[in-house]
């Protein structure tokens, strides 16, 4: 994968990407029939989320902490906030109420 915006985060990013991509490959081919009920899908999704947490949760938290610090140092957090205010990104807006992963 490409480097991180901060060189000190690149090893963590690689480890995270490696873990995530392996999980993601399975996520893209859900073991749930197209005819499954809403509830069955939700159960499956929750399991997938738990699987991610168990396998990659720790490295994700470390990588995220590293980049968040770098974003602040470079002033990019402000740039991101500003861009959202001036020109709200219409498509998926991750909300804080969703399960943080």
């Amino acid at each position, binding site marked *: 994968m*490409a480097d991180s*915006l901060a060189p000190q985060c690149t090893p963590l990013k*690689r480890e995270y990407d*490696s873990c995530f991509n*392996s999980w993601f490959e399975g996520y*893209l081919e859900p073991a749930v029939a197209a005819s499954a009920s809403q509830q069955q899908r939700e159960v499956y999704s929750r399991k997938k989320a738990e699987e991610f947490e168990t396998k990659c949760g720790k490295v994700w938290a470390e*990588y995220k902490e590293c980049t968040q610090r770098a974003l602040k140092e470079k002033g990019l957090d402000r740039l*991101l906030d500003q861009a959202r205010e001036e020109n709200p990104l219409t*498509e998926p807006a991750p909300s804080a109420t969703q399960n943080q992963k």
Partner: protein
Amino acid sequence: MKFYTQSFIYDDPWSIVSLAYFLRYPNPYASHIISCDVISRTQTPSGTLLTTRLILKRGALPRWAPKGIISRSESWVVEESEVDPMGRTVRCTTKNLEFTKVMQVEESVFLHQNDEGKTMQISEARIRSRFGWGLTKRIETFGMNRFKTHVQRSRDGISLILGMLRQSRLQTLGGPAPYSPMYFAPGKIRAKCSNPPSRINSRYYAEVRRMWP
């Protein structure tokens, strides 16, 4: 404002095209990508995956651009995506964060599996300049032409990654992968991975390393 749209069909199923799409950096057709970070990623209660990535790109300005309008040749781009594995769709939007008055480029990509099991890609771009000084139209035309070239290169990059994924899956049939370092690290660190063997195995990475010496 200029608007451009183009569609394309990949012969492969949606899951592998989507994987290739998210693995597309780095590739030899995207040498302008300097860094790419996931800054947020959440799974929604309905099971879709929302991701925000922050990407640093290198880009050259046209010769006629007034000196000093953009202080450097690198710029930050934010990419927001939603993957729905049940509905077999990916929606992805990218926007530049800076110099938006000079030129705002909003690119959307939609990937969806069609009835034949192939993958349809629809790309759209909205290019808008608020620069003025009689240059607005020229800037928008420049942006549009650059985008058209970019669409082709981007597809070439994805096709290349697809080819490597396909090959590594074929080679892995019949036996577990020896290890699964799911990342590109040409000649660099090799992480120990505790995940179950992935179908994307070391041969894939050997191929990647060969291409990016």
